[in-house]
């Protein structure tokens, strides 16, 4: 079998230049299942992360907003305390108002110490408490001072602690406010980012599915078509990684190998069947010269004394001629049945076709079919295997004989093709023809219209294989009810005739 590799590739896809050269089993292994699993995991992890993050950030925001509320209340209280402190210094109003507000502020801090501590951290909370208690101490001192001079002496430290207390609180509240704004923004944007990521992932999965799955499936469909047509060369899918399709390709190649093997076995059995058909004819063809020889030799012995020298010579010549006739019959059959490799030789196509008609002469005669052969003179030589070509023509003629009624006609024509450099052989019959819907399948292996026992369905597929290998083609034209013509075109060769083997 010829092993020409015809990998079918989609021209629109860039497969990369390397993958085809790497044997299937050496490619890195990433299964399609793994790819799909990875895609889904990614999707899940992304969704999970975003959900957890959203929950976390919203909880945090809740805390911060709570904190801001507390901080606002606290700020109001300490600012009030400071206002009353100023009033006291200016107008000597009651200092208890300031102390009251400070006490409320302190209560706010103490009541919410946990929450505040959570946001500020224990250090800052303690600092805040200490500033407040220092300011509180100064206020008490101020209230206790006996004269104005003593009060004036306390004022600077009082003011210092007061402003420290306020600015520290303000700073933190401001910081938290900014942080809350930022978190809101994030909470607003992250779902958008997430959506974009999902979109990209979806697009990727879509592209992956169409490109890798559908196109590969299409390619495998092409492969099955090719195998169906009897091309048993192994397939090499252009894929970078080992995946289910690589395994499928390996399974395909295994199947192809088995098919090829079985096909070869069947080819042999097909040939045997053809030989069987020929043998039936040959037996008759052989018995005639044998009978002539036996009768002649018997009479020669019987009448030896009585026969003239001339008569004896004539009878001996008959024996020789009839023996040679038998030899030719046997040789023809043996030539056809010969096994072995393709033997290319330069051949006279008209002789090949003529020999083929001689091989089937008995089948043709038994079927009472009329066979005519017309060969154009001066045909160019062709390069080919004599036996295989005879097999093709014998097969075509026997097919015609099978469908023809008595007095049917087979016309064989050998001539130069209209296409220069080609020889055209047509085998035409006026039989029932081939239905249009099966004309396309007629060259498929195992396709047969004959009864189960009669045909293997391989004849035409084998014939096509033989003709294709020689660079020619075989096709048919058929009109149901009118007949069928098989057209074989073979390339002529320019090589000198000296290298002809025969």
């Amino acid at each position, binding site marked *: 079998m010829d092993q020409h590799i015809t990998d079918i590739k989609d021209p629109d896809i860039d497969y990369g230049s390397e993958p085809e050269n790497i044997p299937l089993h050496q490619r890195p292994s990433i299964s399609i299942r793994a790819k799909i699993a990875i895609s889904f995991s990614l999707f899940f992890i992304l969704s999970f992360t975003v959900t957890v993050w959203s929950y976390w950030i919203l909880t945090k925001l809740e805390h911060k907003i709570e904190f801001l509320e507390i901080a606002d209340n606290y700020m109001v209280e300490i600012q009030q305390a400071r206002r009353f402190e100023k009033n006291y210094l200016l107008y000597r109003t009651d200092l208890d108002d300031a102390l009251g507000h400070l006490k409320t502020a302190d209560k706010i801090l103490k009541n919410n110490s946990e929450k505040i501590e959570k946001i500020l951290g224990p250090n800052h909370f303690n600092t805040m408490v200490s500033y407040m208690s220092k300011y509180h101490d100064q206020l008490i001192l101020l209230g206790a001072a006996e004269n104005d001079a003593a009060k004036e002496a306390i004022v600077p430290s009082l003011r210092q602690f007061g402003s420290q207390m306020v600015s520290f609180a303000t700073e933190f509240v401001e910081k938290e406010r900014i942080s809350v704004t930022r978190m809101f923004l994030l909470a607003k944007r992250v779902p958008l980012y997430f959506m974009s990521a999902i979109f990209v992932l979806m697009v990727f999965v879509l592209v992956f599915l169409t490109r890798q799955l559908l196109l590969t499936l299409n390619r495998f469909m092409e492969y099955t078509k090719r195998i169906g047509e009897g091309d048993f060369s192994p397939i090499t899918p252009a894929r970078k990684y080992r995946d289910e399709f690589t395994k499928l390709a390996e399974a395909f190649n295994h199947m192809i190998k088995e098919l090829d093997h079985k096909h070869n076995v069947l080819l042999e059995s097909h040939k045997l069947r053809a030989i069987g058909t020929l043998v039936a004819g040959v037996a008759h063809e052989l*018995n005639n010269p044998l009978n002539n020889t036996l*009768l002649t030799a*018997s*009479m020669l012995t019987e*009448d030896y*004394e*009585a026969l003239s020298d001339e008569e004896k010579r004539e009878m001996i010549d008959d024996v020789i001629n009839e023996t040679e006739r038998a030899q030719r019959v046997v040789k023809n059959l043996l030539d056809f049945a010969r096994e072995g490799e393709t033997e290319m030789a330069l051949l006279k196509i008209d002789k090949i076709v003529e020999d083929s008609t001689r091989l089937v002469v008995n089948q043709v005669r038994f079927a009472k079919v009329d066979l005519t052969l017309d060969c154009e003179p001066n045909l160019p030589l062709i390069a080919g295997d004599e036996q295989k070509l005879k097999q093709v023509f014998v097969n075509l003629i026997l097919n015609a004989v099978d469908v023809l009624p008595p007095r049917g006609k087979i016309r064989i024509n050998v001539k130069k093709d209209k296409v220069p450099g080609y020889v055209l052989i047509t085998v035409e019959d006026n039989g029932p023809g081939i239905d249009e819907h099966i004309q396309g399948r007629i060259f498929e292996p195992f396709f047969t219209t004959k009864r189960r026992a009669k045909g293997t369905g391989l004849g035409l597929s084998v014939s096509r294989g033989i003709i294709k290998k020689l660079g020619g083609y075989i096709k048919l034209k058929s009109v149901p009810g009118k007949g069928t013509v098989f057209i074989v075109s073979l390339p002529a060769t320019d090589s000198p005739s000296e290298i002809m083997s025969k």
Partner: protein
Amino acid sequence: MQKTLEVLLLDDEPIVGRRLKPALDKIGCHVEVFENPKQAVARINEKEFDIVVTDIRMEEMNGIQVLEHVQAKWPRTRVILITGYAKMDLAREAMGKGVFDFIAKPFRPDDLRQIILNAAESLGISVDKPSGITEPVEP
């Protein structure tokens, strides 16, 4: 009753007639040889033969058809068929049609002579030299 056996021999192989004619002459047959079935049938229409020996496979007309023709025209005539390739279905068909005997190629002249003697006997004709078939005979 003693008379010459009238035999018609039909085979499209010329050598068959050339060799069998002298072989059958020796047992007291008068043999007319034909290679063409049409001509043979024409002759059968003219004359009643005792025995017709015909090949089965021939162009134009086969031995069975010749047999049918003879049966229709001369029911008494014994027909012997020569087959090149023994096929049961043909034999069965011929038996049904009243063939006297078969002989398969290749055969010796004696084989046919024996069948012809049997046929003559069935016709009630005694032949010249019934025992001489194996002895060399002077022309």
